[in-house]
């Protein structure tokens, strides 16, 4: 069913668009820190919370047009849920994409008729994606001096502004670890 396909793709695009904006606010945080822009960080924090509602609202406008008379048909939503689930299978962030679908559903039905057949009360794909945690951490092995390891580590986590006194920080960290 071609219409259903457009309907679920619109919701998924809405999620991707939200996620991209979320990432962009987040990516700016490091620079705000480097610039000591504290009021900017606070504003970004609020802006990021507000993104969610703004993005679901945008999607709802489109899905209303696409679904037309079927917008409040539960059978339509049952099929939409199943098709959406197929669409996001294997997606890195399918769990958050499900939540986004739920938000669109809840907005249409005013938080009524929330059943697992029509929305993702539970996930057919599991609570969390099968994530490979090892992709997101760095490993440091202590082969020689602890100070040398700490220096490498601080260098890896450096900012566009320098450390005030890296050697001092290394000594403080080393002493805290040894205690």
């Amino acid at each position, binding site marked *: 069913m071609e219409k259903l396909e457009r309907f679920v793709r619109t919701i998924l695009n809405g999620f991707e668009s939200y996620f991209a904006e979320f990432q962009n606010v987040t990516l700016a945080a490091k620079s705000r*820190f480097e610039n000591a822009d504290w009021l900017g960080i606070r504003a970004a*924090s609020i802006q990021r919370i507000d993104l969610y509602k703004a993005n679901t609202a945008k999607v709802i406008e489109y899905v209303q047009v696409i679904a037309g008379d079927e917008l409040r048909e539960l059978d339509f939503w049952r099929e939409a849920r199943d098709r959406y689930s197929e669409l996001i299978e294997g997606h890195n962030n399918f769990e958050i994409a499900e939540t986004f679908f739920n938000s669109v559903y809840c907005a249409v039905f005013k938080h009524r008729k929330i059943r697992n057949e029509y929305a993702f009360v539970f996930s057919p794909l599991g609570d969390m994606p099968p994530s490979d945690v090892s992709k*997101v*951490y760095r490993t440091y092995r202590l082969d020689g001096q602890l*100070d040398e390891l700490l220096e490498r580590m601080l260098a890896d*986590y450096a900012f566009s502004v320098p*450390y005030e006194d890296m050697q001092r*920080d290394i000594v403080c960290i080393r002493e805290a670890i040894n205690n």
Partner: protein
Amino acid sequence: MLEHHFFRNKGAYVVGRIYSGGRSMPFVLPILHNEAGAVYVDTILFGSDMVSVLFSFTRTYFFVDASIPSQYVLFLQQLMPAKPISEIYSAMGYNKHGKTYYHRCAFRHMQSTTDKFIIAPGIKGMVMLVFTMPSYDFVFKVIKDRFTPPKDMTREQVMAKYALVKRWDRAGRMADTQEFKNLAFARDRFSEEVMDELHAVAPSLVEEHGKAVVIKHLYVERRMTPLNLYLRNASDAQVHDVMDEYGNAIKQLAAANIFPGDMLLKNFGVTRHGRVVFYDYDEIVPLTDCNFREIPAPRSEAEEMASTPWYSVGPNDIFPEEFSLFFSGNQRARKVFDQLHSDIYEVSFWKGLQEKIHSGYVEDFFPYRRELRFSRQPVELTETA
């Protein structure tokens, strides 16, 4: 170590774990900006509890560059096994998914337990009916249809205060809440006491459909021990620590431009880490909207003896010298508090904070004890062993 920094307020945090001798120890390096073109490592935090306080539900969400958030969530969960995954998602800014996750866990909790809902321990609120389960770490807060006098406000006003807290910098001192509409519960899990109370104080929000009870609107929040109850069984050392925390909570809220309005002990809770957190939001106002005043001296004996104030009081007028009333009856706690935090009785303290906020100053909210901070004194370089 997680490859990207976590940012929040004025801090950057590097999060990892140390493996040694088959054991693992979580740690965090907080890095601060000296506002003179450089950064420094402020301390190192060790252990699950300290990391957990950093990722607390009482703080603003972090910024972290995680293109697959679940990878970060899983790593963090290994560091803090006692922290609900829903709260880790929220702490990374995915609070809506945190809500989904919370709901799934809540459903499973109900399936795997048999205990009934009870009225939450503590003094009953004028605005909220609060219930929980003995086996459960969360409370459900339902806004009453009519508020106990003299409370004079509307449901919409109360909801606006909760919405404000959601977006505000909670500064480690206000509990995050999840808002639910039309949440269904199994009728047989309600004791008659709770059901009667719901029908009595919030009939417009309660619907019974056969085996289900639907509550049209409620907030879910982590359960804490009400401060007034905590004090009842507290040792002298605990009273000292918790009163210090209570004062710090009031001061940090103020620095975050929040005046709690009603600072009664019962409106604060104690977390499992011993932190004091505010959770009764109906009276909060931005600190900068408050007009802090001293009580004018009476001009005559008649004025002094009058049962009503002899001076006019505006809606946002606040008299800090009256704050000791918040200890109502708990003189043991008050005595300790006065030794630690008597500056809050001074108008100048509050006006000073207002000026700071007006000037655009953003306060530091350290998610760890200050004595843990490194000294920043230059050190003599010595050969290490």
